């Protein structure tokens, strides 16, 4: 335990694993971290990211979370501390950024790499230095895995970065060898690799479903888990967790109620089709239990909460699920209202212990 740490009170710890720091003006804030050539590009084009074309009818940002000066929600570290961390007693917030995940589905990997580095530098200076409670994600451009690995190795010695983060939108499934340089670098520093939705169907990413594009944002949002299923299935079958035994994969904001179905189908098929993947040494579901973590928001809300508990039992949830709020986005899950029906021990693990163990945040900050 850290010295000068306040006595642990009866209050259970709270770690929020999906908090969106943002930019009030992305061009002005990233510009100082770009090379002269990319500054000229940004001056002309702005910090362009491919869009999905899907727009939420309630907006993405919570209107009440705008900063006191009226700027973009999430753009002021001090206001985030009072409006979110202090309000809910959050010990650590894992920052997952805004605007820049689209670098991985941009047609130009050099632009993507330049923005990744600029973003990570800005994050370290502006946010991670502001509060011990902010922990960073190293944003990488997965369309250029060698460059992504270099960026991981550049940032990882700064222990305030606790994971690698990339877009879940992709033209390839993440288990494939194309991406292994990313996993190799992450494993070197024992950093989990996380993915976050938002780019499904954007830029170079595949369509949000194999049968094409949903019509509206509502429909697009509903089906995001399909993409997550594809990636997790791929990671297991390609043997990524055999090749990189250290690798942990965090599926942010993709839900979890679909996991039992995926696990059962994979296990059943493995009993027949094992010879296609002779490098697997255990049931596919076991790789998921051992290596895959999911965050709760937007938490599934069945009519009868015991049904949610049954799902958690099916996937061995006490060890694999981590609370997240998605602050300051529209579909925020309030930690005082969400999953309150959990048994006390599970609540402790899901709201604190699992994230503390995964991200090495065992001691409560002063």
């Amino acid at each position, binding site marked *: 335990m850290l010295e000068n740490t306040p006595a642990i009170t009866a209050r259970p710890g709270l770690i929020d694993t999906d908090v969106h720091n943002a930019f009030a003006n992305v061009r002005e804030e990233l510009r100082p971290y770009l090379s002269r050539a990319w500054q000229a590009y940004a001056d002309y084009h702005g910090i362009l990211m491919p869009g999905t074309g899907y727009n939420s009818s309630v907006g993405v940002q919570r209107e009440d979370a705008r900063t006191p000066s009226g700027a973009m929600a999430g753009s002021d570290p001090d206001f985030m501390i009072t409006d979110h961390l202090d309000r809910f007693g959050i010990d650590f917030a894992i920052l997952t950024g805004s605007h820049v995940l689209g670098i991985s589905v941009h047609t130009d990997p050099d632009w993507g790499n330049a923005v990744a580095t600029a973003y990570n530098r800005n994050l370290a200076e502006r946010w991670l230095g502001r509060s011990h409670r902010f922990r960073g994600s190293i944003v990488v451009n997965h369309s250029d895995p060698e460059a992504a690995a270099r960026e991981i190795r550049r940032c990882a010695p700064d222990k305030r970065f606790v994971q690698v983060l990339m877009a879940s939108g992709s033209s390839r499934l993440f288990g494939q060898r194309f991406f292994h340089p990313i996993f190799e670098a992450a494993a070197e520093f024992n950093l989990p690799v996380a993915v976050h939705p938002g780019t499904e169907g954007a830029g170079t990413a595949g369509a949000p479903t194999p049968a094409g594009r949903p019509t509206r944002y509502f429909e697009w949002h509903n089906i995001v888990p399909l993409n997550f299923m594809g990636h997790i299935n791929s990671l297991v079958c390609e043997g990524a967790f055999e*090749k990189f035994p250290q690798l942990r994969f965090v599926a942010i904001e993709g839900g979890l109620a679909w996991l039992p179905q995926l696990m059962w189908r994979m296990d059943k098929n*493995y*009993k*027949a089709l*094992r*010879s296609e993947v*002779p*490098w697997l040494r255990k049931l596919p579901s076991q790789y998921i239990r051992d290596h895959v973590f999911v965050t709760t928001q937007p938490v599934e809300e069945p009519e009868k909460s015991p049904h949610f508990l049954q799902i958690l039992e099916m996937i061995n949830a006490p060890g694999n699920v981590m609370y997240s709020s998605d602050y300051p986005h529209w579909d925020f899950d309030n930690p005082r209202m969400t999953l309150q029906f959990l048994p006390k021990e599970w609540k402790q693990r899901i709201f604190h212990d699992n994230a503390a163990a995964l991200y090495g945040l065992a001691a409560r900050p002063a």
Partner: protein
Amino acid sequence: MPRYPVMKESDLPPGARKLVHVAGVEIGLFNVAGKVHAYRNVCPHGGAPVCLGKITGTTLPSRVYEYDYGLDGCILRCPWHGWEFDLRTGEHLVDPTTRLKKIPVESGGDAAASLENLERFPVESEGGSLCVVLPGGKAGGPS
């Protein structure tokens, strides 16, 4: 225990498979590299006629993206779901607790001593013939 001679040993050379009906029970006999194994023709997974499956080899445990083919002639692949069974042990390659109903092969002697249940059929070699031994029932020739 009743013994049922089913065929001459020379009718089942190495690599061969024969299906026999004995007292209403279907049994597959397999000669794997000179050793005879017999199994009931019912897959423990889904009830398929497992003994009619392909006799093959398979990919051995390997490093990621490496393919090491082996156990040629030792793998019985169920014709319905493709589950792989090791003919030498009757065990499913993924879950060894799922196994074919096996008949130990003995050359003479008291086969009844190894008879554990209805599904386990000893095979005996008697004067150049292969015999299976079933618990209970009437002794006699093959049906």
